[in-house]
Each structure stands twice: as C-alpha cells, then as structure tokens.
C-alpha cells in the first residue's frame, strides 16, 4: 500500500537525483544549460557528459557505435554540442524553414551528426596546432569561427 503523506515539508527533487536525471535527459540544450545555473548540485549533474551524449544522439537512429571514446578524447559531448552540433543544426534548420525559429526538440539526421563530428575533429586539431602540442583553451579554434558568428540570414 502506498501512503501519500501530506507532510509539512514539500517534495524536493534534490533528494531524488535519478528523477532529476530523467527530467534533464528530456531537455533541449538551452534548457540543460540553464539547469546548470540553478545550483552547484545541478551544475555538477548537468555537466555530466552522458546527458549531453543523450542530447546529441537521442534522435539519431541507429545510434552510432564506437563514437564515445573518440568524442570523449576530443573534448566530450558537451563541447561537441556547444561547438558544433548546436550551431550546425540551428543554421541548417533556419535555412530549411527560413526565418526566425527556435531550435526546440528537433530531429537531426546522421549526415548532420557526421559533419559535426568532422568539424569537431578539425577544431581539436587546430587547437593542437595553436597550443604547441597541448590542447589549449576553451573557446573554439579559428576555422570554426564561422559557426560562432551571427549569421545575417
């Protein structure tokens, strides 16, 4: 029998981290980023790379095999999303639909993922070139500047 207790203290999600993760898994990138700003605990959880992996590939079927070690080595899924997937997808979506539109819960296909991965690898290599042997810096390398700059569509 399940008793629902009406108690003086309310339900707190922070006591149920598995629930929190389930919720975060369903968010889009922007919301996930906002979630990371809520508190230190949420920040630690939202930065978990598997959440971002889920975000990158949840609509891609079949899920690509063997990608994880490569992406992890090149900087992780969160970085992949921020540097490549998000700008690639928002640019391509805007082009298809034309005009202003938000990137909310959209499906991206295998080709877009492949392109993002390639650009991600190029970006890693450029940071190698610049950093003189070490991968330096957090901001994307120069050849991907075109992804960061506002696009006058």
């Amino acid at each position, binding site marked *: 029998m399940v008793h629902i207790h009406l108690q003086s203290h309310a339900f707190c999600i922070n006591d149920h981290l598995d629930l929190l993760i389930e919720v975060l898994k369903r968010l889009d990138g922007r919301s996930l980023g906002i979630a990371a700003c809520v508190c230190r605990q949420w920040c630690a959880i939202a930065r978990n790379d598997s959440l971002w992996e889920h975000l990158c590939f949840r609509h891609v079927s079949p899920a*690509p*095999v*063997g*990608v994880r*070690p*490569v992406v992890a*080595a*090149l900087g992780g899924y969160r970085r992949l999303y921020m540097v490549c997937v998000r*700008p*690639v997808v928002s*640019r*391509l979506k*805007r*082009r298809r639909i034309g005009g202003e539109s938000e990137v909310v819960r959209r499906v991206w296909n295998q*080709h*877009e993922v*492949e*392109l993002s*991965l*390639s*650009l*991600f*690898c*190029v970006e*890693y*290599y*450029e940071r*190698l*070139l610049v950093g003189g*042997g070490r991968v330096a810096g957090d901001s994307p390398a*120069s*050849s991907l*500047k*075109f*992804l960061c*700059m506002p*696009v*006058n*569509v």
Partner: protein
Amino acid sequence: MAPAKPKDLHQTLPDSGGMDELLEVLGYKVKSTDMADVAHKLEQLEMVLDEDGILQLSDTVHYNPSDLSGWVQSMLSELNTTGSDLSSSTNFDIRESSTTTMIDFSNNTEVDDRYDLRAIAGGAIFGSNSDACSNGIKRMKSATAESEVVDVPPGPVVLVDSQEAGVRLVHTLIACAEAVQRDDMKLADALVKHVGLLVASQVGAMAKVATYFTGALAQRIYKIYPKDGLESSCLEILQMHFYESCPYLKFAHFTANQAILEAFAGATRVHVIDFSLNQGTQWPALMQALALRNGGPPAFRLTGIGPPQPNNTDALQQAGYKLAQLAGTIGVKFEFNGFVAKSLADIDANILDIRPSEVEVVAVNSVFELHRLLARPGAIEKVLTSIKAMKPKIVTLVEQESNHNGAVFLDRFNEALHYYSTMFDSLESSGLTQPNSQDLVMSEVYLGRQICNVVACEGTDRVERHETLSQWRTRMNSAGFDPVHMGSNAFKQASMLLALFSGGVGYRVEENDGCLMLGWHTRPLIATSAWQPGVIES
C-alpha cells in the same frame, strides 16, 4: 608588389590649371582652392533635399555641370524661391545648433513659403514631415564629421555615378593589358598611371582587385619581376587565413576526403600521399571518419610532400607529429613520412616506399598543386607517370576553375580579371569575415600573390598556371586515367558545409559529370575530381 600609389602619380600629370586632379579624372572641373567651398555647398544642398528630391527638381536647365562649384551654386539659389541667400555661409552655418529650427517642418503648423520646397517638387519629396525632419537632423549630425574627400550623395542623376567609374576602371585596365600585349609600353605606362588614379575613386572588392592587377601590370611594364621571395612558412600562414575566411579550401578537403573514404572501404591498411601537406588540416576529418567507420579504423599511413623550408625548420615533421598526436587521441594507428621537394617532378614512386596493393590501399591527393608543373615542359607527364607507378586506388584532384594558362597574355589577363573579381567579391560579400579583419586582409594578400604571378611573371617563374576542369579531364584521360564519380554523399556533405556559411547565400555547389564544383553565384571557382588508373589492356 606595392600597387601604384595615386599620390606619386599626382605629380607626374601635366598641370591642369589649378584644377583638382582626382575630380578631373571623373570629369569635374573644380579649382583646388574652391574645394572647401564646394564641399560646404554640397552639404547644404544635401540637407534641403531628400534622396529622390534631386530627381524631381524643377525643369530649369543646368548648364555646364562639370563646373561643380557654379552648378551647385545655381541649384542652391534655385531652391530659394524668394531670393534670400541660402548659400551664404553666414546664414547657414551647419555647425550651430540654432539652425535646427530652419528645417524642423514637423513642428510648423503654418509652412513658411520661403522653405516650402513642395512648391518646387510637390508632396513627393517629403513623404511625411516627420521623416524629413529626422532625416535632416541626422544628416546635420553627420555633417560635422567630414572626411577630406568630397562625399557625393548616391543615386542623383547629374552627380558622378560610382558604377560608371567602376566600368571605366575595368576598361582602362583592359586597355592597358592590350597595350602590353601589343608591346606598346609607352601607352601602357600612361594607362597604368591613369588606372592608379581611377582606383582611388573606388571602394570595396572592386578597388582591391584593381589595385592588385594594377600593381601586377606595373611590374610587367617596368620589368620588376618578383622573385618568389616569400618564405614557405609565410605562405602557409596566408593559406591558413584563406582557409578560415572562406569555404573554398574546406570544400576541397571535405569533398576529396569523402572520395578517399569511399575508396578505402573495406581496407585494413591505407596510405595517403599528399602532394602539398602544408599544416595537414585536411587529414583530421578523414582520420576521424576512418576511426568511426564500421569495423574500426584501418592502419593509416600518411606521406606528406612539401617545399624546402628556410632555416632548416622542419614544418613537415611538425605537422606529422601533431597528426600523430591526434591519431593517438582517437585511436587510429598512424605512420608518417615527410619528403621535401622543390618540385613534384623530383619525386619518384620508388622513394615513397609503396607497399603492394594487396597489403595497402593507396590514395594520391593534390589540392591546388598540379598546375605548377605546367611551367616546365615534360614535368606534368613525368608526375602523372609516377602517380600511375604508385598504383593508387584513387587520385583526388582539386584545382581552380579558370584558364590562366593561355598562350596569349591578353586572354590570360581577361580570364584572371573575371576570376579574381568574383573571388574577391565572395570574400567581401559573404558576410563571414568582419570588414578589414586580419583573415580577410591575409586572404586577399594570398590571392594577390596569385594575381601577381599570373600577370607579371613568365616562363618557369609563372607557376600559377590554372586550367579548367575540361582541360584537366583531357589531360588525365590521355595520361591513362579513368574518372571516378563523386558520390551523392560528397555532394550532400558539401551542400551542408556551404549551408553553414552565411545560410548558403551566394555559394553554389554543382555537380558536373561526376565532379563537384564550388562557385560564387553563377561562376564556378574550384573543381574537385577523382580518378583511377585506367585498366591496361594487354
């Protein structure tokens, strides 16, 4: 490679009787002493007229518009219907704020006849009073920050049309090239100086292209042949900036990689021979695609060829080392060899340690490199034979899509003018780089060196011997290569890549009988093709 400076040429022109020479070139006679006064009058004129206003001015005939000072004066007095002297500087000092009331139409309930320009041109001049008011006040604010050159308003019927000056510039450039073709150096000398003046009146991509072509023509006329003194490391830096500021090189790399990837399907050991390694930026994407392919990555061997470096710096080895680091990171077995060669013709298949094709699949990659061999007779044939000796599964070739190797100088000049104008236009208009950013400037220098080589050099020095895809097709076919069609994946990837660049506006990917071309609007600029050695019938 400095372009002819207008200031220096200024002194060599014959004395035009005190008239300003820059304006004279455009067809206007203004005494240099009157310049400030004319500028002042033009500001006043601009203030009382809307942009279309000048077109709707009355039917009065204006004589002698080349006398700019007198003409502007007559317009100003005409606008003054009651004869009070608007043009006298004492009444109309734009720098004083008290004059705002004179053009503040929106607040006047009764319109003062003296300033009612509607009497001249009807209500069309001022669509809504408030617009005219804010326009006028805006202009007043900007009037105080004046540049030295007379800033003529755009669009008006009588004043100079910058497009017309641009056409004149191009015609003069071509006339100069024609004079060079005919070996009429005296005329060419005069024309090249004239072009220098015309260039000063232009802005934007047109001006930059014209500057490079003018400089190159000047070098040809005065026989100052540039030695290829620029160090290869500088060239690499220039190319890096070119890589960053526009999609041409990225397109080249991605399409070539896709063809190579497909050729490598199923192989366990692969060998790529890169005819111009530079910093190796083509290969990370290929290695990543190989790392993620079904069945895991093959063992990847890369042979990079590069020009001799000054100071014994080993740029090839450095690039190889960085690529090895990347390979280790993503889990691809990697081997690198670097070869320094002044010309590709010096490379022999034997040096390259080609392993039997049952063991290792070979790909040969040449991006903007093969055309240099056309400078020496016999070189291209030798290299194509060497390529066949390497027994590659695929040869990827990326070249500029233009014929800059014609026998007649004038033809080369015209082709190059069109080609580089389009290139510079794409750099400027694609919206990727901020105006005058370092990337943009460096990319222009990179292209400028090519222009200089095409126009000013001859013989073995002239290495930028670009040819069109059809010409390369003929050459490859007669050398015994069969075309390999670039698949739809390459096309899709290229289209997506371009869509990332400013929404894909302007750039165009085209498929041309199995080859891919990237162009700006309707003009293809680079072409990627893939080849395999033909089957030898015994």
